[in-house]
């Protein structure tokens, strides 16, 4: 018999933590840190990733009594992490700490290059360039915390309205309305950059 047969399930570790074994939570961190980090890295600026990850795990720990043990624990963790990212932006916008990057003519030229590009492969390559990241940060910085989060989940990540609604704890109708409005705002912002 291998050691793996003794590996407790997430639900078992949760009940250990709820029974007072605080240290058992560390194994949940080890199991799910990659998932949590993957989400946070995409939603939050690099400098704040560590702090937000810490906040997410503290929130997960404090929410453990509400975990019913019925659904997928990973999904439950993802949902809390997405909400932590959303709260990060709400706090940042409220305290006006959102970094407002500005674009130069170089970005404009780069965007025009993207539009004139015909190859699918080079579009993917362009996405890994500095200009793409700066353009994305600039556009997202112009949106509200709600619009930004929905746009990231639906438009950039490709989640369905239902999946985004589950992750944020909103209604599907609210996600659809937000998604529509935020797309329109983004389109307007990008159209303003392109010289006709």
């Amino acid at each position, binding site marked *: 018999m291998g050691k793996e047969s003794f590996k407790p399930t997430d639900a078992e570790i949760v009940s250990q933590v709820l029974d*007072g074994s*605080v240290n058992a939570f560390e194994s949940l961190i080890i199991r799910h840190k990659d998932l949590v980090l993957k989400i946070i890295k995409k939603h939050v600026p690099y400098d704040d990733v560590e702090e937000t990850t810490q906040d997410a795990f*503290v929130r997960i720990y404090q929410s*453990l009594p509400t975990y019913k043990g019925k659904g997928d624990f990973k999904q439950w963790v993802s949902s809390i992490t997405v909400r932590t990212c959303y709260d990060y932006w709400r706090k940042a916008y409220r305290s006006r700490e959102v970094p407002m990057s500005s674009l130069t003519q170089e970005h404009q030229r780069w965007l025009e290059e*993207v539009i004139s590009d015909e190859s699918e492969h080079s579009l993917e390559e362009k996405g890994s360039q500095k200009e793409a990241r700066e353009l994305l940060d600039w556009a997202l910085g112009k949106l509200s915390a709600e619009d930004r989060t929905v746009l990231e989940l639906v*438009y950039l990540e490709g989640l369905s309205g239902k999946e985004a609604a589950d992750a944020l704890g909103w209604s599907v109708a609210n996600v659809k309305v937000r998604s529509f409005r935020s797309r329109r705002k983004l389109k307007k912002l*990008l159209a303003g950059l*392109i010289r006709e």
Partner: protein
Amino acid sequence: MKKEDHFKIRRVLAAAYREKENAVVGELWQNRVMSHIRSLGPLSPAASYLEFFERFLWRLAPIAGALILILAAIFMQINFISEYEMARILFDDPVDFSLFQQGNF
């Protein structure tokens, strides 16, 4: 902006968004989380909604009963049914009802 131009920009922005995943993060945060969690101490299990409901339902029953009686008495006093009927007539036949109210009927 043309549809195909927007599609291309979306592809590039989505790629840039996915690229963020590759950022390298240190491991120090893990120790900080655990020391924070230890400082919070063990969790107390939250009472479920059902338990909460069971605990308070019977305490609230006499108050709810008294409230029903009081409201019934108030509605009898203010002739709520007639008010409701009047509103219904107004919506059914507004012209006739207005004439009736003015005493021209």
